[in-house]
């Protein structure tokens, strides 16, 4: 802790690089997280979020760069720095044939907790994830939502300073999702630092103090939500739900003045996203163009500047599921 480079940051990642054969999955990623801060690492699927997180947790060695937590270097070896991190894997990672309490005890013991101290922590976590009633039940008898909560709880038994969650809401029903977001918010308020990855921009908007946007393994922007949104400078996002020759429409749109970016996105790949200045005055022109290239518009929506607009602005591509 005598390290001078550690000026109050809890986690410092510097120039992380990780290659898999020819492919560079993470390409020079650096960021810092202060104690108690909730940091969102957002980016589309395959951007390198999980790879980054695995290096942070010491599960994967970095080809270049370093990870330090509270001034101590994290590596894949058995180093004590890992004690400060609580890792929540993307998929549920629990023993289905053990009870809720047995699972929590086991993960606590891995961090040298034992006896009364262990039981106290297990009770506290059961309370935190609202599973006290089900403590004696086997995990394979729990509902999906309960397992999700226990999956997070298992990383909390040893009271980490930094909780790392890898897309904890993927494939989760809306109710559980709400519960998960609520508890992550609470952890932040209680002073725990959180590293949260997601490809849902609205989750990051809701939860995170600071956000890093990652794409193709590179950190392309970083800041508070306000700072990031400011970079798109008053541009609105126009969402046109449409059918027909979308590719032709997109290329015609790109020729228009005042249009910054155009791409097709949305859950069904049927939404044209257009990033423009002063969307309301340009709208008639956009609809007229659609008419001319035989594209049928079924819905129009104008969205104020948000993180998706930032992403579209920076990469030229819309986020897809």
């Amino acid at each position: 802790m005598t390290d001078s480079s550690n000026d109050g940051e809890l986690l410092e990642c510097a120039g992380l690089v990780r290659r898999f054969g020819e492919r560079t999955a993470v390409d020079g990623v650096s960021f810092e997280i202060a104690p108690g801060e909730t940091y969102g690492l957002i980016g589309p699927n395959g951007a390198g979020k999980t790879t980054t997180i695995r290096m942070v947790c010491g599960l994967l060695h970095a080809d270049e760069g370093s990870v330090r937590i509270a001034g101590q270097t994290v590596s894949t070896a058995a180093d004590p720095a890992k004690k400060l991190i609580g890792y929540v894997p993307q998929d549920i990672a629990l023993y289905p044939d053990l009870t809720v309490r047995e699972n929590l005890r086991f993960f606590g013991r891995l961090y040298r907790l034992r006896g009364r101290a262990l039981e106290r922590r297990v009770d506290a976590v059961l309370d935190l994830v609202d599973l006290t009633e089900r403590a004696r039940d086997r995990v394979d008898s729990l509902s999906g939502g309960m397992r999700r909560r226990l999956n997070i709880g298992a990383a909390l038994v040893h009271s980490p300073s930094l909780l790392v969650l890898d897309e904890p809401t993927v494939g989760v029903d809306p109710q559980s999702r709400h519960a998960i977001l609520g508890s992550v918010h609470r952890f932040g308020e209680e002073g725990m630092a959180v590293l949260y990855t997601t490809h849902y921009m609205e989750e990051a908007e809701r939860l995170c103090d600071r956000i890093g946007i990652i794409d193709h393994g590179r950190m392309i922007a970083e800041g508070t939500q306000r700072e990031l949104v400011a970079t798109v400078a008053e541009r609105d996002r126009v969402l046109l739900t449409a059918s027909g020759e979308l590719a032709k429409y997109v290329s015609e749109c790109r020729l228009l003045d005042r249009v910054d970016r155009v791409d097709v996105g949305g859950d069904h790949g049927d939404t044209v996203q257009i990033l423009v200045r002063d969307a309301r005055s340009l709208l008639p022109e956009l609809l007229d163009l659609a008419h001319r290239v035989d594209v049928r518009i079924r819905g129009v929506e104008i969205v104020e500047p948000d993180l998706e607009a930032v992403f579209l602005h920076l990469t030229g591509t819309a986020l897809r599921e």
Partner: protein
Amino acid sequence: MSALFAIARKDLRQRLRDKSAFVLFLLAPIVVAGLMGLAFSNINLHAKVGVVDLDGGPAAAGLSQVLGSPELSDTVTLRGYPTAEAARSAVDAGDIDAAVVVPAGFTAALAGGGTPPSPTVLDDVDHALAAQLVRGVTESYVAQINADRLSVQTALAAGVPAASTTELAARAAQLHAPERIEARGLTDDPLKTVSYFAPGMGIFFVFFMVGFGARSYFTEQQQGTLDRISAAPIGSGTVLLGKSLSTFVYSLVSLGTVTTVSWLVFGARWADPFGVAVLCAAMAVAVVCLTTLVTVLARTERQAEGIASIIVFALALLGGNFVYASASPPALRRLALFTPNGWALRGFTDLGTGIGGWSAVAAPLAGIAVFSAATAVLTLVLLRLRRPA
């Protein structure tokens, strides 16, 4: 250290909760050993043996005498046959369990100092034990006479007049029907089938632990719990060691239960409980080493399963878990010495025939130790070659 025990404890708990593991490692070996004991027990008690004397001399008569001696009367009933063919068909018909054919010129060869044509034993696969018994008696009879011949020749070399040697040799062949017969399985406490097959089956089923243990590693990898464990501040070897510890304990409990139950319920007898415990512990170590090797060798759960079953069946077949080692051909018996179970069963055979203490278990222990060490070295080499990504 505490993380290692936590992993071992967790694995044991999971295994105790797994009904298929319970059936495989405790119930099945006991049931199968019991059934085998019941099925084969009467063969041990008695053998009907045919004798075909084509020689007609005193040496052949001596062999009949030995087989019909009072000390074997509980075990052997003799019946004479005029020709080898008649004896063969009696064996095939199941009238007798085995027959010994003493060739013509047997006595003459012995008396003349040439190499005697040895008696042939006619056997039947269903009564391997009886044939084994006859073979043992016959071999030791011939060996005894040869020893006597040697003493006659020694006497000759020492200056006994050549004229009296023929007489001497004849006397040797006639008089020295061996007083004590030493054939495997024929000491005061004949080897009971269950004393062999109980550990045989116990070891066979414990070998399944290899696949089980290796698979549990890949299950953890797949369900993500291995990542969770690796995210904790513990060494990379701790997981393998913790899992090994639980495999050791479970193997030991399994073998211990099988031997204890077959002793209490099925009448298995070994000279020395200490020897049994030592052999069980050594086998548990061998199982741990094999499990670790398969874990390191395989890349997926599928592969682990495949490699494990090949190893298990190869070892069980070579080591003699399904057949009496002493009833199998010599080449196979030699191969059994490359297997830990072959050594362990050797130890159990000795213990089962009344040999106690270190003289029964020292060699098996050394054999199992060499096998385990070789496996461990191979594992370490593979680990070296496959540095984690």
